[in-house]
């Protein structure tokens, strides 16, 4: 492989990592609005398939994704959303679409890629007081995908799109032993962690109306109560 070919991308990845390390946040939300429209016909949210992975954190620091836990977490997340939307009088739009079909609709595929790029831009640049923060956006939360997103409004029959990304890891018994011995030697070794973000996009304007980041060394998506706790934290301040 060519040396340095991935350099810029990896550099950016590390800038984000560094930013996370500097901020040391549990959850940091940014909102453009606190409320959804009052009109019940305009309170339709499509939940894009949540990107969730749960893994075992091995002693050596490698993460092994676990399918059973991941499936469990997905079920819990879906249940939480159903409950939350019902209580909040929000209509959940079911996306009866296989992931593979997205690629066949080029327009949708491009909009999804743009959505991902905007999400990355928020992750890089929305950091108060950090070198990566954009001075022109200081003190604001102004991110948009632009009005072409209306195509998805029509296609999905929804007013907003909710996107959820979570990576959750749990220390293996070996890792736990390592943490214990490390502590005896006075060396701090990180255990499992929850990293995630969620965003809500207005499908009329393309504006990202709400964005939340989560980074903490606790939480458990494998149980109903644990998942509820995590989702409450992740979706706190989501426009009502």
């Amino acid at each position, binding site marked *: 492989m060519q040396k340095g070919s991935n350099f810029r991308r990896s550099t950016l990845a590390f800038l984000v990592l560094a930013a996370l390390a500097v901020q040391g946040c549990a959850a940091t939300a940014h909102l453009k609005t606190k409320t959804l429209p009052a009109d019940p016909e305009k309170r339709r949210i499509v939940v894009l398939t949540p990107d969730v992975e749960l893994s075992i954190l091995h002693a050596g*620091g490698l993460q092994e994704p676990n399918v059973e836990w991941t499936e469990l977490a997905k079920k819990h997340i879906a249940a939480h959303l159903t409950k939350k939307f019902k209580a909040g009088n929000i209509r959940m739009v079911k996306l009866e679409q296989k992931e593979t079909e997205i690629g066949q609709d080029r327009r949708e595929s491009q909009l999804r890629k743009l959505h991902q790029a905007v999400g990355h831009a928020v992750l890089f640049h929305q950091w108060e007081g950090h070198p990566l923060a954009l001075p022109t956006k200081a003190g604001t939360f102004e991110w948009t995908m632009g009005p072409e997103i209306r195509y998805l409004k029509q296609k999905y029959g929804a007013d907003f799109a909710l996107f959820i990304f979570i990576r959750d890891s749990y220390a293996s018994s070996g890792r736990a032993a390592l943490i214990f011995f490390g502590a005896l030697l006075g060396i701090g070794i990180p255990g499992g962690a929850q990293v995630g973000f969620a965003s809500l996009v207005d499908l009329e304007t393309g504006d990202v109306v709400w964005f939340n980041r989560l980074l903490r060394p606790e939480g458990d998506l494998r149980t109903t109560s644990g998942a509820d706790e995590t989702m409450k934290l992740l979706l706190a301040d989501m426009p009502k």
Partner: protein
Amino acid sequence: MIVRNLLFVLSFCALIAACAADDLSAYKRGLDGPERTPKGEPGRGDFPFRIGDLAPAHKPDPKTTEAGIWLQVEKLERQIKTAGRRVQIPELNAYVESVSCRVAGPYCGDIRVYLMRSPGFNAGMYPNGMMHVWSGLLLRVSNEAQLAAVIGHEAGHYLRRHTMKRIRDILDKSNSLVFVQLVLAGAGIPVAGDVAMLMTLASISAFSRDSEREADGYSILLMAQAGYDPEEAWKIWEAITKEKEADKEFEAPSFFFASHPVSEERMEALKKLAKLVKKPRAVDTGRERFLKAIRPIRRHLLRDELHQRKFGPFNVLLDRLVEDGDNVAELHFFRGEMHRIRNQEGDLAKALEFYEKARTSPGRAPAEMWRSVGLAHLKLGHRTKARKAFDDYLRNNPNATDGKMIRQVIKGLEK
């Protein structure tokens, strides 16, 4: 991708089976190492490799590590389908798939080949059956049988679950290593931790050398079963070795990892295997089919290589293709391009010689050649000849996107 990269740095490192060009060291141990035959199938006959006991359409049990890895790789595969690097030329994709199916036989449905636009010689196998073949590889195999050898090698990785073994190996070793590091760090010798890391990496590398050797065995077996001439496999390495040798920037591997001349050993091993394997009655190299499939894209792939600005290896590559003899005009054009862009002493004159050769050789050079001729003359101060070449360029490319720019240059030459 950036976020994914960040989060999966560790796991993704291990996902792809180390392959071809990256692991010339695979043959360090030669063929005389311990015989490896799939479980439950004793080595019978003379050929040391068999198709394993893996049933077609295998899906891992969700409780396993393998299932977790598949989860990630399937996500990756969905992205690859619409990724920028994926080559989407229906005829070419269909051709590569047809070769893959012929090689993989009953496992055809399990292996999905993605042609990825990238210079250089490489291919890789993911544990779920997603195979990547770099477009640069199509310049470095000279017929269908050689392409089949590479695909067979990758299929071998899949059939023998090499990537999964490698991941388990890395997991085990990194787990034990971290305790060593902890103890050393506690004792105040953090540097020693790096030595331990190096040793671990070296043993993982040795592990993958064994896998490479085994995959080569499968490659020969699958080729023969599919009716390809297994003698074609070793020839790839002859060409690749020459190209590597011309690469002055290519770093010599450290004493820990391998030593030369591994690819010669690899070639010898492949020759031996080709003699051992039971040959099909009619063997086929499929040269015409192969050339027909890559002809429309070849000049773009050559341009990709030239963008690397590694002139030595590029020349070796061109030499081999000229020897092979398909559309030589195009190849002479690229020889000219190499000299013109390198632009060291005497290069411009050489470039012009090759452009002239391209004009008179069999085949067809791209229409942009006239522009290149003009540029070379321009740099040499041959104003009249430059002007004529640019005029020819515009005449041959009436809709050229750079027409306005060229006309401006011509105007300057008229003064």
